């Protein structure tokens, strides 16, 4: 099978996860690729989770551990046979430990075109405070 390509973008292998905690339904588990950036008042997270629908995505934050998990149903119908297979469909799973205190009530999550955009506002007491130094 001949393939011609030209690309700026590198294909990242979808990393398999040694599923922790163990899954109750069988199948491969992948690590979504993420961008995480922090500003003074919030932490933003973008995760590539192609194939996940909003209803199959779960975001869980407890005790400073953020858990992302999503399930992808196989898109192929049963009478299709493989010609070329380069990626697998399965679940996504990734956990992060957040060092900052997050305001749980104001978390905002959006899922568009397979990209999860999560806004985690810091709670008041975790925001940096400017301390003025007085000279005597």
């Amino acid at each position, binding site marked *: 099978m001949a393939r011609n390509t030209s690309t700026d973008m590198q294909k990242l292998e979808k990393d398999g996860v040694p599923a922790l905690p163990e899954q109750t339904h069988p199948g491969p588990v992948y690590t979504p690729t993420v961008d995480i950036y922090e*500003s003074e008042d919030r932490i933003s997270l973008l995760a590539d989770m192609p194939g996940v629908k909003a209803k199959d995505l779960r975001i869980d934050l407890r005790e400073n551990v953020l858990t992302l998990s999503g399930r992808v149903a196989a898109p192929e119908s049963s009478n299709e046979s493989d010609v070329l297979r380069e990626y697998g469909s399965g679940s996504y799973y990734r956990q992060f430990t957040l060092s900052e205190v997050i305001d749980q009530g104001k978390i905002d999550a959006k899922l568009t075109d397979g990209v999860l955009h999560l806004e985690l506002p810091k709670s008041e007491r975790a925001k940096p405070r400017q301390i003025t130094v007085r000279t005597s």
Partner: protein
Amino acid sequence: MLLRRVWPSRPAFESPFADFDHLRRQMLRVFDAVTGGDIARGFSAGVFPPMNVTQDDDNFYVRAEVPGIKPADLSVSALRNRVSISGKREISEEKHDVSYHRKERAEGEWSRTVTLPGDVATDKVDARYSDGILTLTLPKTAEAKPRQITVAS
């Protein structure tokens, strides 16, 4: 016959490497059990985007994982048995007053062509983009479809 009974697992015609082959198959089985058999199956071209191609009697299906791309930035073309897809991903919102903890997602332009095992009716190709997956349905031409042949008696 007596030999067979003493070493039942090694018929005389087997090569001395039969044990290695057996071990290799055992290890592959272990890998399959660990990975769910899924990773071992895929032989990736190592380029973006990863694609799956399937077929049934009437169509070829091409699926590609291209999250975070606007449908307007995707282009698809088909000629006989070749399908090209190309597109561009821009990660906007890159601000200057933030500090990055992780930056794993890539951006840029890409294009890719695959050759299908049969010709497609290029005027009837259907392309859909949802949840970050591009799905192309490419109807086979009459020549590429399997034909039932009746056996005369």
